[in-house]
């Protein structure tokens, strides 16, 4: 029992959960949240991967906006959008680092799970079942930072998706994209290795034809005025069972893009 009278009364309007959700539903989402957040469970690969990308994202945003990444809340006050938020594995740390976080996911289930977990841990995060296109159409105010992590390789129209995401970035803002490269090495490791050999992911999680090259991301966002500032690979070491940032972007990689303009960036 972690929800309190105050939590329920003050639940933010955009949240999917609310007074109309029955007890059985809540129990179901609590169970699913526990699955998402179980570091030994089926999302273990994400949990192993998370610290490495969190550090990269924190440093990229803090660096771009001239903040000290080692300070207590380096993202304090920044409006941040996490696209494809899943169970909230990135939203929650971003919130703790100080950002005002909006997390969206096309799956209503994911959003309910993420909202349930945030409520359990007492974090205020604005989760919505939505897409970047819908946010743009709805006139959503722009964000200081937009995170697009492991989402690009699952969408139908990469260019539209990236352009909509970029449209949600404030002038002077930053976007971080993480995905899988379309290379033979990526097919061998991220597809065959992760799904068939290590059995980290269910078979069929990824369609290698949908893997995206860094140049394709750069080309897609160019019309929006965003330019790529940095990129890095993320590689797994089987011996240490840990991920680390590397130069090689042939498999998993992250791209940092920024938008000109804004205070101090004009």
């Amino acid at each position, binding site marked *: 029992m972690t929800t309190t009278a105050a939590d329920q009364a003050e639940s933010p309007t955009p949240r999917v959960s609310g007074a109309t959700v029955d007890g059985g539903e809540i129990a179901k989402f609590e169970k699913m949240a526990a699955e998402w957040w179980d570091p030994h469970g089926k999302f273990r690969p994400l949990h192993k991967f998370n610290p490495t990308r*969190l550090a990269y994202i924190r440093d990229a945003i803090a660096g771009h906006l001239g903040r000290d990444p080692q300070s207590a809340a380096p993202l304090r006050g920044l409006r941040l959008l996490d696209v494809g938020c899943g169970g909230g594995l990135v939203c929650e740390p971003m919130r703790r680092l100080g950002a005002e976080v909006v997390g969206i996911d096309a799956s209503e289930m994911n959003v309910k799970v993420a909202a349930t977990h945030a409520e359990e841990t007492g974090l205020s995060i604005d989760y919505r079942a939505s897409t970047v296109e819908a946010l743009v159409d709805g006139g959503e105010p722009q964000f200081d930072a937009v995170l697009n992590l492991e989402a690009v390789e699952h969408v139908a129209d990469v260019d539209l998706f990236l352009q909509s995401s970029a449209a949600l970035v404030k002038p002077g803002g930053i976007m971080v994209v993480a995905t899988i490269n379309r290379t033979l090495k990526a097919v061998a490791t991220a597809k065959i290795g992760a799904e068939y050999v290590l059995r980290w992911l269910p078979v069929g999680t990824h369609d290698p034809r949908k893997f995206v090259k860094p140049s394709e991301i750069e080309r897609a966002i160019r019309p929006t005025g965003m330019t790529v500032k940095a990129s890095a690979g993320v590689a797994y070491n089987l011996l240490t069972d840990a991920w680390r940032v590397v130069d090689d972007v042939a498999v998993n990689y992250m791209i940092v893009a920024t938008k000109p303009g804004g205070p101090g960036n004009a």
Partner: protein
Amino acid sequence: MTLQTVAPAMGAVAAIPLGGRPVASPDRPAATKDIAMTNDERDQANSEQGGDLRVDVAIVGGGLAGGSLALALAGAGFRVALVDATDPSVMRDAAFDGRTTALAYATARMFRRLGLWDAIAPSAEPIRDILVTDGALESPSRRGGVVDSHLWFDGAALDGEPYLGWIVENQIIRNALFDAIEATDAITLLAPASASGTSFDAGAARISLKDGRRIFADLAVAADGKRSALAAAADIRSHAWGYGQKAIVCSVAHERSHDGVAQEYFLPGGPFAILPMTNSRCSLVWTERADAADAYIALPDDAFLEAIGARFGVYLGALSLASPRWSFPLGFHFSESFVARRLALVGDAARAIHPIAGQGFNLGLKDVAALVDVLTSARGLGRDIGDLSVLDEYDRWRRFDSAALAFGTDMLNRLFSNDVGPIRAARRLGLSAVNALGPLKRTFMRESGADLGRLPSLLQPERVSSAP
């Protein structure tokens, strides 16, 4: 920090906004632990909630490991509650704990960083050399004679570290810790206070105290020693066995200088350690079969002293008792896991080992330093410090690191606590062989200096900048 008592009724859970703080706008849900709260805001939120205490880390057990952890965490910017069932004024008293601790040189680095070393150093006797001897009671070493099977650890062989370690009375460390804790705003000391219930859930570790107060923490730490109640509450099992041995502990004053030499004799009943203390005293750690230990403890002073003298030998001249005697049953336990959701085990709560190598406390402090590193880096990434994905890192680091030492000391005790002829011959050969091998000996010395393995930052050597 003021704490008011709260109505202990469980029904209060729903009524009191546990995670709540005054909410300004409806789109900001209540959440005391939400980020971006300054410590002042948190204090205010705490007091407005009628005395429930919300902290980052709640430590149960205010002994040497728990107290050190509280200080180290506070130093790293965490808000800490420290709970102990015993009144600190009792724990500070010399009669509370007559033991001494062998501070490894890496452990001393940590005390320096925590600002405790100045208070400890005047009462710490450096260990310059360690002499390990195997033998029956009539061995010539007891008369200062030459021994044929021995191991001689010479402090001069360690680069950059002047001593192998220090011997300090636990009381000295305890008082230095409490002085510092009482002067640290970020630590709320709740003692005497005992827990009536604990739970570990997705939102917080909750500790209910018998007086009705409640603590909510992102992480609870069990520093409550062997047979930890907190570990049991989290269903963490432990492999445990007794040795049928007890350690008799006391201090003796002696005529001649001990020259900073620590001696360990392996006698049939168990190891007999003579540890150099300040003011021409030595601390004895005398392991015996439990029944024999009880009989020795019951002896009148002069007969007890004679029994010590028979083991001690004459190399330090005439002896006199310099403290009361204590005895402690010896056992081994090793927890199956050092972590659970929202719980980490440190020190003896994680594992207790035989004092044969004088490593128990140093292992505990290494836990403390490692946990501080893991939590600090997790917080820097905005991760939940009570989450298993964070705590797993600590578990892997410390459980695997200390398993070898824990089971090694167990073997060592079994090997040495007997008088079987062939085993004695084999271990004599072993001692002489290790003694002849420089690199192996240095490894032993660094291990006993708690200086091996992946070192937490609190234990790393100070960076020395060369003078211009």
